């Protein structure tokens, strides 16, 4: 077991009370696993990602723990957490387009970053070049300023930087959503390549695009309103989802070849609840076609089949 | 003082003037010293005339006496001939002797139109050197008063150096490296100072048995009076001829400062400040109105509040205290006025100025609004403030006067072209003769541009004739002069062509830190005019320098 998250609760402080963005999330991630994390906007995907590496100013760790390779991650302690960042846990942020210091040549920035972590740059230099080649970037990007790169190039550059120290866990937050399909494919394939080349041990890929994550992930975890809804192997989620939310989500995706006059797809009616504070009971209850009385009680996230966990009374 | 530690070492250390042998002065030069041309008597560097170039005579206004200087004596040999004899052994600082030729040459420079004393040749027929020491002047129409003024006011220039100069060089040339005859020589100058060094070969040492005490005179350019005050208090200036408001309170403080009088008015009276009404404009063309206006001015407030008692209120005739002997007290008692708002109102009513619209201010006789403007140059803070007080007083009497402060040059334009209602002016200094004073008031004919006199464009042929008559009166004929002057006073007090307000001081504050024995009204002290202003060194101030004593070293 490589990452084990136990009952993680992270709230955002806000004027009118806390936003319960992550409310008791428990899951685990196996070695070499790429897990896709999907869900509607605002369901807490980024929050989960961030809470495993760096809580931002407004986030408050309320409870729960995370364990990586048997070591407890001090996620609530910014100073102690520093030791883990980059080396053990690393991130490709949502804002990869602006993640590089605009006034430093990229190579120099990388050197300074690496050296600031107490590693001599020449020792990683060769590896850096190798990885640039791996994602299809020329070495001379190191001599350039970020503004001189295209979005896809920056995305891949950040990817290389983030994984330079072979972290055990890589969190990739919406790395492809700003890109067009062909670039998306290149970036996503590169991402999978990192795992295949053993540069990162396992990965959480956050996205709202199920079909994209289907291409590279081993497992998919579906979140809804700050809670986990379902987690299972990719194929299982796509073909045999158990949670009604997952089912509706999958069925709303148009595929190439499908036309409205042939097979008219339908969306999920209604909208997710406010998380300030979160409603009691099953949070999907209001939109769920299968909802029944029991749903007033929060269903546990339980394994219903090996490797397949669901939080739904109807599924268990 | 601690503020100036840098130059505490008075020993001739490298770059500093030895403090104990140097006199620091200020208050004359407002821009950088830029010319040493004695003919440009409005801009030459402080001391150019007096320290460097000298005059034939000195005139001491405090004693009303002429003292021969370059001249040994000067006499009218008959009614139209004047002869001046130079002293023996006079030399220019380049060693050449000073001769009658130089005197004649200097006078003849006046033939150039742009030389300020060009009008000399209106009444002078010829000038000739009789011998090496004697020059003779023959007058077509003798004007004794003017000539008496000329001989002490204008310096003699060396013919051998000035002969070849063009008119431009004479009237607008900088005359760098000046050669004069006086007790000081040009040492150096900078944007902010003029430095003179003692002329050890000065002829006066033997001939007059006089010795100027400071080895160096450093005249400082100060942009503002308050800067000068700061330096004076710090002991950096020995003699300040600046207008320093508040000095009255400091004289009594522990700054070792001294003014000519230890009590109010502290300063000698140097000139009269008049309010000049434009007599070509209604209602200022009405003498009764002018008189009402004159009575409305609270001169006491100006003297006490604006000036903090360092000036004194003017006699209605405006004649300076040194001219007291010319004042016809009976006439003044009969025709003079004092500040009296009620009287001013009464005079207005009597003359037919009424407040028709009930705003407390009178209107013109034809009912049109009466609004007068009193212009004083911007930045002349004391005058600006005084103008405000005048306006206040006028308003109390029912006359609308507003004070405005255009730029200096604008005020100049206004008064030359006559486009003003009221201005303040003080362009006549203490002098050898009140003729200069009355010339200013009554001068005729009126020109389009009145450049120097009679800005109010007051026309009174009779009075002007009297002035000319005065001019042609010998300077020692006191009785003859008084007769004429009395009639002039009468004309001035009845018609009020100018409204004398107060006597501007001969601003002078001396510090006893380094030099002592400054001129003072107190017994035993030398009594000379204590000023480096243009024209004052030849009014006796040069002798102040011979009386100075170094202060006791602590």
């Amino acid at each position, binding site marked *: 077991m490589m990452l084990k998250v136990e009952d993680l609760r992270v709230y955002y402080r806000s004027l009118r009370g806390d936003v319960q963005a992550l409310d008791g999330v428990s899951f685990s991630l196996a070695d070499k696993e790429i897990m896709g994390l999907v869900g509607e906007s605002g369901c807490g995907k980024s929050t989960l990602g961030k809470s495993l590496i760096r809580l931002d100013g407004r986030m408050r760790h309320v409870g729960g723990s995370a364990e990586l390779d048997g070591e407890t991650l001090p996620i609530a302690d910014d100073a102690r957490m520093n030791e883990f960042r980059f080396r053990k846990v690393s991130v490709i942020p949502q804002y990869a387009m602006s993640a590089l210091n605009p006034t430093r040549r990229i190579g120099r920035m990388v050197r300074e970053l690496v050296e600031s972590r107490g590693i001599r740059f020449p020792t990683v230099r060769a590896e850096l070049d190798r990885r640039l080649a791996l994602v299809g970037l020329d070495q001379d990007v190191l001599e350039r300023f970020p503004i001189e790169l295209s979005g896809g190039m920056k995305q891949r550059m950040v990817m290389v930087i983030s994984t330079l120290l072979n972290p055990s866990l890589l969190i990739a937050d919406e790395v492809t959503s700003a890109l067009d399909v062909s670039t998306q494919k290149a970036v996503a394939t590169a991402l999978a390549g990192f795992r295949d080349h053993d540069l990162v041990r396992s990965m959480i890929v956050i996205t709202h695009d199920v079909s994209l994550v289907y291409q590279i992930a081993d497992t998919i975890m579906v979140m809804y309103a700050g809670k986990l809804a379902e987690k299972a192997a990719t194929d299982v989620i796509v073909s045999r989802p158990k949670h009604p939310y997952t089912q509706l989500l999958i069925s709303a995706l148009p595929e190439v*070849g499908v036309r409205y006059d042939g097979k008219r797809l339908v*969306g999920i009616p209604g909208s997710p609840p406010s998380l300030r504070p979160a409603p009691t009971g099953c949070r999907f209850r209001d939109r769920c076609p299968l909802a029944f009385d029991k749903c007033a009680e929060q269903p546990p996230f339980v394994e219903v089949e090996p490797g397949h966990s669901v939080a739904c009374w109807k599924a268990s | 003082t601690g503020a100036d530690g840098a130059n505490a070492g008075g020993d001739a250390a490298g770059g500093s003037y030895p403090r104990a042998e140097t006199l620091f002065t200020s208050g004359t030069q407002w821009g950088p010293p830029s010319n040493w041309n004695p003919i440009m008597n409005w801009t030459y560097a402080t001391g150019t005339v007096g320290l460097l170039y000298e005059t034939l005579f000195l005139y001491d206004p405090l004693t009303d006496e002429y003292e021969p200087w370059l001249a040994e004596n000067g006499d009218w040999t008959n009614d139209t001939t004047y002869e001046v004899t130079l002293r023996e052994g006079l030399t220019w600082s380049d060693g050449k002797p000073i001769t009658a030729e130089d005197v004649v040459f200097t006078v003849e420079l006046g033939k150039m139109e742009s030389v300020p004393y060009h009008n000399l040749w209106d009444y002078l027929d010829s000038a000739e050197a009789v011998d090496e020491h004697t020059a003779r002047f023959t007058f077509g129409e003798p004007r004794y008063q003017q000539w008496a003024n000329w001989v002490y006011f204008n310096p003699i220039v060396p013919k051998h150096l000035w002969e070849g100069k063009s008119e431009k060089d004479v009237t607008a040339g900088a005359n760098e490296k000046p050669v004069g005859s006086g007790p000081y020589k040009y040492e150096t100058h900078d944007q902010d100072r003029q430095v003179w060094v003692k002329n050890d070969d000065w002829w006066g040492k033997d001939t007059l048995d006089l010795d100027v005490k400071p080895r160096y005179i450093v005249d400082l350019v100060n942009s503002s009076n308050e800067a000068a005050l700061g330096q004076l208090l710090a002991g950096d200036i020995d003699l300040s001829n600046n207008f320093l408001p508040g000095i009255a309170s400091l004289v009594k403080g522990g700054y070792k400062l001294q003014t000519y009088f230890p009590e109010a008015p502290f300063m000698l009276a140097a000139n009269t400040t008049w309010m000049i009404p434009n007599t070509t404009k209604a209602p200022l063309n009405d003498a009764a109105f002018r008189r009402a206006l004159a009575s409305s001015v609270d001169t006491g407030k100006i003297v006490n509040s604006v000036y903090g008692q360092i000036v004194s209120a003017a006699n209605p005739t405006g004649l300076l205290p040194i001219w007291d002997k010319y004042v016809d007290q009976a006439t003044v008692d009969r025709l003079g006025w004092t500040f009296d708002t009620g009287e001013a109102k009464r005079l207005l009513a009597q003359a037919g100025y009424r407040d028709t619209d009930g705003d407390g201010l009178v209107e013109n006789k034809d009912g049109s609004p009466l609004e007068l403007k009193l212009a004083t140059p911007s930045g002349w803070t004391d005058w600006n403030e005084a103008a405000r007080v005048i306006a206040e007083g006028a308003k109390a009497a029912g006359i609308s006067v507003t004070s405005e402060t255009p730029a200096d040059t604008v005020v100049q334009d206004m008064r030359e072209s006559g486009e003003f209602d009221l201005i303040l002016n003080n362009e006549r200094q203490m002098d050898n003769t009140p003729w200069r004073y009355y010339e200013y008031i009554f001068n005729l004919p009126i020109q389009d541009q009145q450049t120097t006199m009679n800005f109010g464009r007051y026309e009174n042929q009779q009075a002007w004739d009297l002035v000319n008559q005065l001019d042609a009166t010998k300077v020692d004929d006191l009785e003859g002069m008084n007769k004429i002057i009395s009639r002039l006073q009468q004309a001035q007090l009845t018609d009020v062509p100018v409204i004398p307000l107060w006597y501007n001081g001969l601003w002078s504050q001396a510090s006893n830190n380094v030099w002592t024995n400054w001129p003072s009204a107190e017994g035993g002290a030398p009594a000379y005019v204590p000023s480096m202003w243009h024209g004052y060194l030849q009014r006796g101030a040069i002798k102040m320098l011979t009386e100075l004593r170094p202060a006791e070293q602590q």
Partner: protein
Amino acid sequence: MLKLEGVSKTYKVGAFARQDLAAVRDVSFELRPGEVVSLIGESGSGKSTIGRMILRLTSTTSGTITFGGKDIATLRRGALRDYYREAQGVFQDPFSTYNPVFKADRVLTMIRQSYFPDVGDADWRTRVREALAAVSLNPDLVLDKYPHQLSGGQLQRLLIARALLLDIKLLVADEVISMLDASTRIDVLNLLADLKERGLAVLFITHDLSLGNYLADQTVILRRGSIVERGATAEVFGDPTHPYTRTLLSSVPRLGERWTDTELEHGPCRYHQLHPDGTDPAGPALAAVGDDHFVACFALGEDRKCGQP
């Protein structure tokens, strides 16, 4: 009804030095009433620029756009307003399409001020209700609310309702769904489909081929400002001719089908297979490869081999 002929757009770019950037080059296609044309291409290929040119939000550099036979470039003031009465747009980001300072239904009020100043209050209210009903919005939930109080889908639909108030004939929908959640997306798409049934012509701009396919009768594939392939949707998707189209298609992530499954074939494009000697520079920009199917090969005339996009 709407016709683009040889439309190009060149931007001057660079803050200081002026450089030309050809965002759209020589684009021609046509839009008939009741037809949905989807405009597909990668980011920066000029899709939005075309949409904006059609709406006269951006001027064309050359070429003409005619609507109902009238060159829209010549429209001024009143005529332009009349044009907007028939042609409207909906944009990618529903949040930035609303002025955050004002209530969301202000977009409707603006329409009223501009086009229906004489309509009475009651009359207007019923019209609004009808339009909202047409996009299945509950008036009580959306009116009198600030934009941030509404969901993206609601906002997007409100914009469409706004267009409906005008009884438009042409709608330019520029990436209307890319910011929306998967579930909301489909609702908006279905709505567009319904509008089409009502006879509205829609220019559907997207970079997602599956979405284009879901809705469109005609498809235009754009690359670097030029059309590389266009034709009936079925033909373009069923028989992609241009290598670029094929790359795009193969890059689309599909459920149940991994990327690795589709291998890009090499060799000349179908266009070159059909016209092996088709290097005629004087020939038409797009060559017909089917009934309603045209393609351009970018390798044409350059020393680049086909099949290498």
